[in-house]
């Protein structure tokens, strides 16, 4: 690892405790915001590991390289909310944006209607000042944002194993593997739709 990245990793590790505190506070507050909202399977926050932080900085294309990664990497602290039904995605996000200020809201989905793959709601929020570590007030390199993902259990069930497989893109996969992943994604999408239809009928 080049010296620059060793130093970057050291700097990141030195703020690890502050990030952990922030992560704990954001998780607690997210749970408070969603106290009365049904169909939530779990809420969890994590701090990005030092190795993954450095990997993210290193893998960025030169044209998009970070000037100050300690400030600009936005998922140093990230949360994930898993919901039971597809309709809950909007319900949960509507509650969250009442309390946290969003700067980016994206629904990630395959580019065409005939493709199946990764689906999840990704959002970036401003770190509320009352949970930001006090020493960050005068730290121009401290992060200002955190990431939050909201997905259904079936979206998660597809996303986690395929993420664990660790391939870098479809070019790394055989045609058979690519087709099987697409089939699994389509099955997850279909299961979400079916469960949602049942839930909607039950609600009438």
């Amino acid at each position, binding site marked *: 690892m080049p010296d620059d990245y060793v130093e970057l990793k050291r700097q990141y590790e030195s703020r690890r405790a502050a990030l952990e505190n922030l992560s704990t506070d954001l998780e607690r507050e997210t749970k408070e915001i969603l106290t009365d909202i049904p169909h939530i399977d779990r809420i969890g926050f994590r701090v990005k590991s030092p190795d993954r932080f450095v990997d993210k900085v290193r893998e960025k294309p030169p044209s998009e390289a970070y000037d100050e990664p300690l400030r600009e990497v936005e998922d140093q602290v990230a949360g994930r909310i898993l919901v039971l039904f597809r309709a809950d995605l909007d319900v949960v996000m509507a509650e969250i944006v*009442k309390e*946290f*200020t969003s700067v980016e*809201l994206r629904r990630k989905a395959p580019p065409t209607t005939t493709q199946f793959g990764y689906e999840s709601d990704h959002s970036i929020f401003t770190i509320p000042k009352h949970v930001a570590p006090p020493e960050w007030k005068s730290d*121009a390199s401290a992060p*200002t944002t955190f990431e939050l993902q909201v997905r259904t259990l079936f979206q998660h069930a597809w996303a986690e194993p395929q993420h664990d497989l660790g391939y870098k893109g479809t070019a790394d996969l055989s045609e058979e593997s690519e087709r099987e992943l697409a089939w699994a994604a389509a099955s997850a999408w279909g299961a979400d739709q079916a469960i949602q239809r049942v839930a909607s009928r039950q609600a009438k």
Partner: protein
Amino acid sequence: MSSQSATKARRLYAYEVTPQRNAKEPVAPPGGQVKSIGGVSGAIDETTSGIGAGKWIDADLQIDSASEDRSHVIRNHAIAVAFGTDAEALDAAGRIAQHLSNCTDDRSKDALLMIVVAEDDKETEVKLWTFPQDSVFQFELAVGQQAGPSVRTLEAFSRGSHLRKAAIFRGKNRRTDFLSCRVVDFQVNASARAAADFWIERFLDARLSLGSVLGTKLLGKVLRETVAKAEDADERLELVGAAQAVRQSNREKWSIDSFARELLPEPARTRLLAHPAAQRNGDSMFALNRDVFDKLINFRVYQLDTGVWVSAPFTTEPKGMTIKDDGDQRHLTAAGYVVSESVRSRHA
């Protein structure tokens, strides 16, 4: 802003802003770049540093979260003023002035908008200050004349006015910066909603950094835990009374500090402000959510047909108290030892 290092002013703009909220064809506010910035920027710095630490409000801009570039009316212009070419900066400063003018209705007087761009070795700072017009006297004692002192009436822009307002952004020209600002607004608790919301919501298109539900829950938690630690029944009653007062107040925005300082006598005030959450976030302002507050405080007062009042705040299941359905009525029984007795004008 005492935690920040000293900055050096680089650009300064001034505009006379006339209310034009209801104007059919708003005109551009007169003004532009101030070339000689030394003395004026020093006065702005002095005004800024004169604002006490507890008077600043943290606000987050309401970014267009669907936009690719995190677009926002004030953020876009503030970044252009700070990092654009001279021509771009002048244009953006004029647009901020126009936006302020378009947000201001006829109930306000003309104001002086000052936009200062300053920097230190780490970041660039954009200060937006607005000072309302005020009528002042100018007293002059002419030397060597027999006519005596002269007094003139003038219209000037007041640096010390209670209606002055500020917003300060710090950062670099990048996606993660200029998303929040620190604000001075002494009218944020005005009873008239238009005045209370004018600077943060209407002009800055921002909101308080601490959300309404989270802020209310924080106050409720601090209050409940302070009641549990109260030294005696009198102190507990003072805390309960303050909870009732904040609930009934017309005022929307509170902080733990303002709650303690305005509604609690000693020693309850000191005890509440010593709570760790108050120590950390006492000055964080939020809009009180009364429904959430009611659930947290669980303040119930029962009036009995005997003329007796029973109140049981901060407890979901008061010990020694039962309520049973008795036909069309409910029958309340309360039993316990009397630990204090006082003459009061309210049922707390």
